[in-house]
């Protein structure tokens, strides 16, 4: 349906040669092409956001037909809930540690893959191996690491053999280690995206910059510090903001490894919200939490859009 608009308006042109076609119809052409996108985004993005904001100010939504206006009661309830505050803290740790590690690993691996010392074929093989973790869906990554991190699994076997631990550690099941275990898995699964972008960035740095630096008698570290890093800065900034946003959305990995436990030690904003809605059926407080998550993300998104504009 929506596709007929541009067709009709543009077809009119050759039928009336020499006469300027209707400017109104011509102005509407781009909107015609955009209409399927706009329709989808309005129905599945704008309307739902309005709905969830509406829910968050009401009591007993969805489960009861006659919900009443509740003001900020749901927000007060969520913001004073120790579980929510724990989720906020865990999410902050999870996303900041993950992003920094993604950047460090991604940059290190990208620079090794960009070396001039090895042949193209060797580098291509290594590149595929390095991208592997990114090609598996989170459900698969969750079961792989549940297997590896099992108390009698292979990671514990290796650590026991070299004497780092006395007996098998239940990495996902111990409140002391669970948050670090899920963060580690997230680091493993997420660095390749950074690596690919940074590798492209490295290959885009003009060679004469390095040649000029070499003529000046600089060492490796100085070239990294004064040529590589400044050249990669725009990529690094936008990737980091994007990664913070995406990592904060992470639900499946937590849900399938620890479920937010044990004792809230890996509860994230996403799992907290999900549980409120689909385990407790507290859709009103869940909506308030969902809106808070949205607002926090919008702050990050603001920086992302700005970093994109600067380029």
């Amino acid at each position, binding site marked *: 349906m929506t*596709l007929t608009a541009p067709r009709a308006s*543009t077809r009119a*042109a050759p039928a009336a040669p020499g006469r300027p076609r209707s400017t109104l119809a011509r102005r509407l052409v*781009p*909107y015609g*092409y*955009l209409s*399927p*996108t*706009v329709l*989808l*985004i309005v129905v599945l*993005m704008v309307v*739902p*956001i309005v*709905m*969830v904001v509406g829910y968050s100010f009401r009591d007993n939504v*969805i489960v009861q037909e006659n919900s009443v206006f509740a003001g900020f009661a749901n927000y007060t309830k969520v913001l004073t809930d120790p579980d929510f505050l724990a989720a906020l803290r865990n999410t902050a740790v999870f996303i900041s540690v993950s992003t920094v590690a993604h950047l460090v690993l991604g940059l*290190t691996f990208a620079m090794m893959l960009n070396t001039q*010392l*090895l042949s193209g074929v060797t580098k291509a093989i290594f590149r*595929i*191996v*390095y991208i*592997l973790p990114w090609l*598996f*869906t*989170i*459900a698969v990554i969750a*079961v*792989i690491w*549940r*297997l*590896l991190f099992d108390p009698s699994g*292979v990671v514990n076997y290796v650590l026991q053999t070299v004497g780092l631990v006395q007996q098998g550690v239940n990495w996902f099941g111990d409140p002391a280690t669970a948050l670090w275990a899920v963060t580690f898995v997230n680091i*493993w699964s997420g660095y390749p995206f950074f690596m*690919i972008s940074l590798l*492209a*960035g490295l290959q885009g740095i003009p060679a004469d910059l390095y040649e000029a630096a070499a003529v000046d008698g600089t060492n490796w570290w100085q070239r990294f510090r004064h040529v590589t890093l400044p050249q990669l800065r725009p*990529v690094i900034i*936008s*990737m980091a903001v994007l990664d913070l*946003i995406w990592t*904060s*959305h992470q*639900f*499946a990995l937590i*849900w399938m490894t620890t479920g937010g436990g044990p004792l809230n030690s890996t509860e994230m904003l*996403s799992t907290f919200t*999900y549980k409120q*809605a689909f385990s407790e059926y507290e859709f009103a407080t869940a909506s308030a939490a*969902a809106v808070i*998550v*949205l607002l926090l*993300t*919008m702050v990050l*998104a603001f920086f*992302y*859009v700005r970093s*994109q504009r600067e380029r």
Partner: protein
Amino acid sequence: MAAVKTRRTLAKAGVVTGLVLGGLFAGLPVLWMLSTSLKRNGEVFQSPPQLITEGFSFDAYREILGNGTQLRFFLNSYIVAFAVTILTLLVAVLAGYAFSRFRFPFQKTINAAIISVQAVPPITLVIPYFGLIVALGLYDTYAGLILTHMVFTLPYAIIMITAYLNTLPRELDESVKIDGGTGWTALWRILVPVSVPGLVAVGVYTFMISWNEYLFALTLTRTDDMRTVPIGIQLLMGQHSYEWNQMMAMSILGSVPVLVLFLLFQRRFVGGLTAGAVKT
């Protein structure tokens, strides 16, 4: 001269060591998954661990492939991911054409809105979606999954396709218009065929997002007739009291489509991906 050569050899040894260590970090967990899928379940936690055991067999794969419920999960994932890919490309080509070839009021605003959509947390949407999808009669249907997946595949696709179309000279469409064609024919006869490499990259990425999606599949479907592979893997964890070899076999089978697509289109895909992510 000899000193320079020694330094070069040392540097090379250092890089190779680093690459091998990093490769083990990346690849060993994947190798262990493969190895476990070929064991008997009783051998999974044997000590010391072995890569290839006495019970080496493809039984776990036979179990999964002989199970109608599991096969249905695969069918569902293929239907949803292919539909999402085709519809996303179609809608994104139209939007990308508008952004690339027209200047119109609110262009910047609409573009910024599309970029921002990528940042909206799925968890925020899943609560209203639950109500909305039920109200639209799309709960536990392919259409419900396809539409909700598209919300997250479309923005990226539009950004990448716009960037790709921007690299094509305007003379291409002008030549069609001189021959009496319209913008519509220029788009489908000239621009789309020329853009195939870019569209392939976008398509592969779209397929991956849809194939991997978990939260909406978990919330908006209820029956085994509609569940997708990621949910199937999770269900396997619950019901079979940890048949690890089958879980790994299912995981590998569930990863094959994305692995194959990636290996086939690696060059284009990586190039297109970074073009979209780095310079929108």
